[in-house]
């Protein structure tokens, strides 16, 4: 176990730098995890402000709040900020904090690269958000940046491309670190098939990241050279093909949705058994299901492109392959329900969020299956139905699981119990307002409202008004979470080493809050 030998430098610098320098130079996985989580929450709030501006414009038909150019910038940046700034870094933050604690390692394998992975993100965020202020404003080509529209954009597009390059680099380094940590630094006795499920899902996610982030970087680089260096990758007049961009983008884009959901599955698989006080049902089948989802995710990308006019054989293949993903996803849901069955359940905030996750995420799973049917997809593609679908899996899926995980591990991170009352209030407000916002969007999409429009026909008025009210409620509810975290970090009821009686795993064997250095002596797992 050579890799477990602590970095000697670490001891020199131990508690030495303080203030800003501590955070700039830290190689400690807990410090870095905290920074990731704070960064992602800040980005979550800025993406949220964009979403609320969008919803304010859509409250009524007509143009009231913003002009169409700026509206398109907002929808584009909302997507980019939430995907690359909020959800992905939040999961990396969880990985940093929890993976070493859960496998009994002293830190991440490449501690200094870990620092660099994080510190790449703030410059990328500044490039991305700063692009609002350059001539022509931010890119308005949609978060998918489809050519040739993205080739037409102003300077903001170049800012977005460089931001994506930097964030991609950060993700790849983070992923390599996670793979090496999990494969090499597990405590003696922790076989792969004894690993907590959160580690398994992150291991598989890390492989996905390494495989597809370079593909995205390639796609946006081709846009960059089409824009400035006279190439014609996506310009038919020069022998290129605009649809090729979509193929490359979605070869990244579909695995990307699993990058954002597999770690969420992992968090939920930790929490459900803890509060059912019963071991996870079908551990092995959960691992296999995760791996099958990951493998299938590489061969279904063109289900985002049914309206481009593929040959019938292509449409049929991508339809069948996509439908197949419902099988391992279903297995996961069945396993969670079987874990709860005949358990001894209690509903503290982490469990509330995890149960809410299963319920609402599954709605998104079903609409995903409906979208997979090519002829139906041709009707609902690029409508609000799709907007509803992916917010059910990304907000009710990824985000709810992140909240579940935060309430579950906050005692370990801060040494205090998060407020039970506020946590429950946060959950119920979020659940209700989430559905008020996004459920009517299914109706809007079916009835024919296209997405990415600042103004709409009159028959869509009342559901849009309702969605806007829900969105403001949902946005404000997130301030409750901020209050919970601040209160919990400042003080509160002290947390025991194992604050949840049904919880299992090495992270609960160290004191709360977790000391700065843990598992310098590797624990023995029986």
């Amino acid at each position, binding site marked *: 176990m050579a890799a477990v030998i602590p970095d000697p430098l670490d001891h020199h610098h131990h508690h030495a730098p303080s203030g800003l320098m501590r955070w700039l130079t830290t190689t400690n996985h807990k410090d870095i995890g905290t920074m990731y989580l704070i960064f992602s929450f800040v980005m979550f709030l800025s993406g949220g402000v964009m979403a609320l501006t969008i919803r304010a414009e859509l409250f009524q038909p007509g143009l009231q709040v913003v002009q169409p150019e700026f509206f398109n910038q907002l929808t584009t940046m909302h997507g980019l900020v939430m995907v690359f700034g909020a959800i992905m870094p939040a999961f990396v933050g969880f990985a940093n904090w929890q993976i070493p604690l859960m496998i009994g390692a002293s830190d991440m394998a490449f501690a200094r690269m870990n620092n660099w992975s994080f510190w790449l993100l703030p410059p990328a965020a500044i490039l991305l958000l700063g692009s609002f202020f350059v001539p022509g404003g931010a890119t308005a080509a949609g978060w998918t940046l489809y050519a040739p529209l993205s*080739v037409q954009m102003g300077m903001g597009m170049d800012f977005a491309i460089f931001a994506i390059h930097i964030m991609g680099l950060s993700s790849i380094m983070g992923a390599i670190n996670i793979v090496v940590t999990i494969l090499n630094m597990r405590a003696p006795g922790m076989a792969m098939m004894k690993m907590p499920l959160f580690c398994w899902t992150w291991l598989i996610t890390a492989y996905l990241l390494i495989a597809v982030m370079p593909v995205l970087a390639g796609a946006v680089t081709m846009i960059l050279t089409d824009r400035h260096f006279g190439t014609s990758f996506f310009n038919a007049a020069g022998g290129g093909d605009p649809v090729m961009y979509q193929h490359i983008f979605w070869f990244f884009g579909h695995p990307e949705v699993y990058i954002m959901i597999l770690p969420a599955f992992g968090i939920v698989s930790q929490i459900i058994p803890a509060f059912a006080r019963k071991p996870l049902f079908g551990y092995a089948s959960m691992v296999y299901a995760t791996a099958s989802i990951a493998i299938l995710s590489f061969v279904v990308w063109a289900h985002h492109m049914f309206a481009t006019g593929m040959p019938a054989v292509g449409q049929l293949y991508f339809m069948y392959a996509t439908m197949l993903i419902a099988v391992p996803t279903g297995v996961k849901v069945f396993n969670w329900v079987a874990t709860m069955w005949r358990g001894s359940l209690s509903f503290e905030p982490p469990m509330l969020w995890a149960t809410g996750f299963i319920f609402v995420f599954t709605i998104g799973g079903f609409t995903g299956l409906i979208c997979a049917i090519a002829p*139906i997809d041709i009707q609902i593609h690029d409508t609000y139905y799709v907007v509803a679908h992916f917010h059910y899996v990304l907000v009710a899926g990824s985000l709810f699981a992140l909240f579940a995980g935060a309430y579950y591990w906050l005692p370990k991170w801060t040494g205090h119990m998060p407020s039970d009352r506020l946590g429950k209030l946060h959950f119920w407000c979020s659940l209700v307002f989430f559905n008020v916002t996004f459920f009517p969007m299914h109706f809007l999409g079916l009835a*024919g409202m296209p997405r990415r429009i600042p103004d709409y026909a009159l028959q869509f008025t009342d559901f849009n008004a309702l969605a806007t009210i829900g969105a403001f409620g949902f946005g404000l509810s997130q301030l409750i979470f901020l209050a919970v975290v601040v209160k919990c970090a400042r003080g509160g009821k002290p947390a025991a080493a194992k604050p949840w009686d049904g919880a299992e795993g090495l992270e609960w064997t160290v004191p709360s809050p977790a000391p700065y250095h843990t598992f310098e002596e590797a624990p023995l797992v029986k």
Partner: protein
Amino acid sequence: MGLAARIAASTLLLVPAAAAQAQGAPARYNLQTPVTGLAEQIHDMHTLMLVICLVIFVGVFGVMFWAVIHHRRSRGAVAANFHENTTVEIAWTVIPVLILLGMAWPATKTVIAMKDTSEADLTIKATGYQWKWGYDYLQGEGEGIRLLSSLSTPREQIEGGAAKGENYLLEVDNPVVVPVGKKVRMLLTANDVIHSWWVPAFGVKQDAIPGFIRDGWFRADKEGVYRGNCAELCGRDHAFMPIEVHVVSAEKYAAWVAEHREKAAGAAADEAREWSMAELMTRGEQVFGTICAACHQANGKGLPPTFPPLDGSQVVLGDKAGQIDIVLHGRPNTAMAPFGGALSDADVAAVITYTRNSWGNHTGEAVQPAEVKAGRNKS
């Protein structure tokens, strides 16, 4: 689709929302009332899928909520310890596969039907422009008709200065007209960026891709006016390029074709003659307003950097032939699309004359349709 249709019909009773949708009123909860066989198949398939998903959903969450209510620690529930069962795992893998096969079968038939664009009675090419649609009737009755179709909702309604009309944002100046009961093949392409031609009641949504031609088809069974939108984000006025299709009887269609032919003959005679400066300026202002002002702005100042100003522009103040070439053929890798296909010689001549003699531009030069014609022949 017999079974699917029957199940679909019976669930209309189960889903009160769908039943509440009055005949003819705009759709609110469900897919729009289909008027083609394909849209009908899609509609029924969606209902069938919804029912299957609802049944599974109620089953799974019935179990979960039973556990949530009855297996609580606060009710004294003691946890069991089972955590593995291979038979159960195999069952809930195999059964979903069988259900999926049942779903895939009708969908496969519809995919194949949607792709069969052979033996069309009428072929129309639709071209997406930022931000309007152009239509060319390529084959069948009405062959040779061309029209440019842009939003006719007045700006004041959008900006809140006037009450919004019934078909707010879903109305155009020149709608597409097709005969009822005839198979219409749509060829789709675009001039600048990707657009998507979508009429929900027909079940047709096909991307219009610059430099490529894709196709789709419909056979409308009922006369009426059907409306749709551009469905692919295409820049600023993506929300403002609707599609309006009038499905009319064979006689009305023949009359429409004849009327159009007459107008076109008159226009062709008009093209060839020498135009006066005043005539060119009047026509030019009108063309500029509908075609160019969206990007270059009515005051000629443009929206830099994507849309450059024309007021004081080197191109506009420079050689006539150069400007004619750019308007006809566009500028690669910029937002300036070729307009040679959409505009007649007289339109191009007029709009160029207008830009060369408006705002701060005072060249005093008039461009004649003949010069545009020469510019077309050059390349």
